[in-house]
């Protein structure tokens, strides 16, 4: 019997209702170590709700979510030790310096040799000259980098990113993509949500497409291409529209027969 592959994120039959409105319905997927999974979908598809539920901020209405084997609802502290979450809008502590943010993370996650590690991280993310500046004086791109530095410092098993490249300059985008790839090669899993389909296509091993809170496709680009009759080198954008529009539109009368 083959040994089952370890999973850093396991989402099983997850559902989330806000009153009578079902934001996510019966969603199941898993992310393995070193894998980069992209979460795509139109506005209101349930991407942020899913990410927030995985991070333990929202409570699932149905199903279960495990991070590195820890149920995020029953054992939240152990689960939260395993991941880093970067939301779409970064809200740092305005009056804390860049270094103080990293100090706080180092203390919260009991990071060994924190000073050595964050010095290297600041270099990598081109934040060294900003280390003593308070967060309120940083630009949006710099804040995004600070958030990434806080995430990488704790050496998480999985990094959850909601729109990770918002506000970054071209050089910053290239650096972040390289950082993500390098860490994924080292075994860190990434679950990222983005509307930039080109980025998802270039970076992700597998793609999860959500529509109105339901999973309509999950797999590698090649696997998803099978769902829609497209040519073999169709881009993710073509696949995305083919898959979502096929699901959204009623079946053509000619096809009914």
């Amino acid at each position, binding site marked *: 019997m083959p040994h089952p592959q370890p999973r850093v994120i396991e989402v099983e039959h997850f559902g989330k209702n806000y009153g009578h409105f079902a934001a996510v319905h019966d969603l199941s997927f898993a992310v393995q170590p070193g894998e980069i999974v992209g979460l795509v979908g139109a506005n209101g598809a349930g991407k942020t709700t899913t990410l*927030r539920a995985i*991070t*333990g*901020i*929202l*409570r699932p209405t149905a199903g279960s979510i495990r991070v590195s084997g820890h149920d995020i609802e029953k054992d*939240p*502290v*152990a689960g*939260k*030790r395993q*991941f*880093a*979450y970067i*939301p779409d809008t*970064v*809200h*740092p*502590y*305005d*009056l*804390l310096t860049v270094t*103080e943010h990293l*100090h*706080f*993370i180092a*203390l*919260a*996650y009991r990071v060994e040799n924190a000073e050595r590690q964050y010095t290297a991280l600041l270099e990598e993310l081109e934040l060294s000259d900003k280390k003593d500046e*308070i967060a309120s004086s940083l630009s949006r791109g710099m804040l995004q980098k600070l*958030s990434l530095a*806080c995430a990488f410092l704790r050496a998480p098993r999985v990094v959850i990113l909601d729109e990770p490249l918002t506000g970054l300059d071209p050089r910053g985008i290239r650096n972040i993509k390289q950082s993500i790839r390098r860490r994924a090669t080292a075994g860190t899993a990434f679950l990222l949500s983005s509307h930039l389909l080109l980025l998802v296509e270039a970076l992700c091993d597998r793609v999860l497409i959500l529509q109105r809170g339901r999973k309509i496709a999950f797999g590698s680009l090649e696997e998803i291409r099978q769902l829609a009759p497209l040519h073999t080198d169709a881009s993710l954008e073509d696949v995305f529209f083919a898959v979502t529009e096929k699901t959204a539109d009623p079946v053509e009368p000619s096809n009914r027969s």
Partner: protein
Amino acid sequence: MNRALLYLWFVLLKRRGLHGIRGLRRPTSLIGFAAWVFFLCVLFHYRDEAVFAQLVRRESLIGGAMIMLGGSLFMGFLQRGLVFEPPDVEFLFTSPFTQRQIVVYRLLPNYLYALVQGLVFLALFASHLKHPLLTAVCMMLFQVACFHLATGAAIFGGTISEQAHVRVRWMMLGVYFVMAALYLRVAWDLKVVPSFMSSPLTQLFFYPAATLSDIGTEPVLREWMLRRTNTGAFPARALWESASYLGVFAGSAVASFWLLLKLRANIFETSLATTTRKAERRVRLQQGRSLAVANESRFRSARLPKGSLFHGVGAIVWKHLIVASRSKRELVLAGAFTLIYTGFLAALRGLLHHLMSAGGELPAPQVADFDRGLLAMLCFLAFFMQRTFPFDFRRDGHHLVGFRTLPISPFALALAEITVPTAFCLAFQAFGVLALMIFGGFDGRVLLYLLFGFPAVALALNGVWNLHYLLAATKRAGGKPGSASPVEVLMVAVLSFLIFYPAGWVGLQIGRYTFGSYSEPLAFGGWLLIQYSVDFLLVLMLAKLVQRFEVSRDSQ
């Protein structure tokens, strides 16, 4: 308590302290701080006065404790979830902290507040208390217990449905009313509930429930309350009695803390919603936008106006009129206020006419002076009214960048911005004039004065306040914090009186040096000329500000 959370709290406290001290470089902050220090010094200087002794009478202390307890529970329950700073959601909610650790972190500022409050209480009231230190410590512990209850109520409030929340809220208000009525009756002998409520007929409706009188005059309860509210200073107590007081308050703080930590509810989801709501509210406040969000999300779109009145700069007036038609809450509030205000003035006029018709004679010039006084008070209504009509730069402050690109002159834009609130002020004042005219008409000359005078006043007031709104908006556009300090608002309020000084002075001088029947019209004419000139200058200043403000990278 987690080490990381303690580090975060201390660093933030230190930074906020330093930030506050640095903020004193701004004149308005310095004036506000100096005013606070001065106020506290005055209180400290007069701390031995009898009025301070009245404040620490047992009745007052019990009343204060009831307000603290009831207020904490109610305000906490109303929040429906704990309020955090937005960064807390990102850094604390997803970090490996237990829910209890986060709740304690959230309570740390409250503990500090209770400590400071206890010290201020000790400094101000020590001379009137038999055991000042004990009382201050007890008060501090009571405040801590109140914070625990408020936090618990907030968490509990977030777990129940909207419908249940509304019901419990009204039930709490009902209970508070009964308790307040009972307290006022027993402690201060004040009867809040009118006597007809205790009539046999009314009691029939509540049978077999006990009436307030029954409860208030219940011997056991009355004896207990009188014992509690025994007037005068603390009587001499044995040491064990002091210790028991301390024990009870410390016990209540510990018990409430234990209960709070025992709450099984999930705080993250409700707190996320509450924190987001509060953060949005703060942003709206900083941007000078209305805090009330329209309940309806869909309106029937207004038709494209056909007249040329709303073309060009008139489009801004049209936009404000549409917004006004959807701001029912503001209009109802303004209407209610006008009704009360003019009702009072009309009652004064009615009373005078009633007394005169009953035989009290008053010379005609004095009646005319009385009427002019009432009209002057009605003129002052615009001062309150313009604050209730946010259809000007208050609402458009954050659209300044877009307005700069419109093909209209800054002067026309400034004038258009203050047109709608000025028109609304005049409309509501016209209602007041009609109400006053029920008790006798004003002569033609007075009506002419009203016709020309009221617009000058309304225009000046709206001009002054819009200068303030526009300056705040330009500050925001420059990336600076936009919310005005109380000192700034006070200065604008003072300026909105001073703006009438030049015209008033000229009017008085003309009146002083001219005689006969032409004196009054001449004085009024002079006043009017100067006042409209001042109004023109105000609009010109608004236009210059619109034209010159700098746009930073943040506002682009």
